């Protein structure tokens, strides 16, 4: 098993980092705006829920590959991701433009490099 099971601790830390981004940073929610930010090279990190349709997921990953932007597969579905963003609607994918006070981008790039 290469990918370790997502521990509860790291999951909580992503949630807390996301909450900090929601408070202090700039982000966009939703597929259309995610693609827009990727095209205009404004996105710094893209987060995709786990029940995102596979075609849409691979399309976002391809755009992110072209734009050299990290993609994080959130351990939860769009309902959970919406809750993690503090919203009362479902969020399938979101793009972080400016992390504000959070270190989500640095910690994401560290964990993917490991």
């Amino acid at each position, binding site marked *: 098993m290469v990918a370790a099971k997502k521990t509860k601790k790291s999951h909580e830390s992503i949630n807390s980092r996301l909450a900090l981004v929601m408070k202090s940073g700039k982000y966009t929610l939703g597929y259309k705006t995610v693609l827009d930010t990727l095209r*205009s090279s404004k996105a710094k990190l893209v987060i995709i829920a786990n029940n995102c349709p596979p075609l849409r997921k691979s399309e976002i990953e391809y755009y992110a590959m072209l734009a050299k932007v990290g993609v994080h597969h959130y351990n939860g579905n769009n309902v959970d991701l919406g809750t993690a963003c503090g919203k009362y609607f479902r969020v399938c994918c979101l793009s972080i433009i400016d992390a504000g006070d959070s270190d989500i981008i640095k910690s994401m790039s560290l964990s993917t490099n490991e």
Partner: protein
Amino acid sequence: MVKFLKPNKAVILLQGRYAGRKAVIIKSFDDGTRERPYGHCLVAGIKKYPSKVIRKDSTKKTAKKSRVKAFVKLVNYQHLMPTRYTLDVDLKDVVTGDSLQSKDKKVTACKETKNRLEERFKTGKNRWFFTKLRF
């Protein structure tokens, strides 16, 4: 964080008459213009792909089969799928901003892109660009 909708990028058109066709970006207008207040780009693409040429074909037949029909269009970014491929054919002088002003300018631009694309196809490079996308 890298801009990838740049000139010479190969893209696939997603909407319109030319949906499913491969094209190359010639000029991109990221912030739009007065008439088109959205990100769009000028692309030149293949209207009719060249057919498969086999060894049995005579020279006359290969010449006929290697013909390419081209188009020039202004397309919204949303209606494009960018790819990781590039096509460095110099079309900047042929296809300009005002190629689409009048019908005969467009025809001359299309004719010239057709010639350039055909000679690129005959060299055998950029094989991916000249194969039809199956869907």
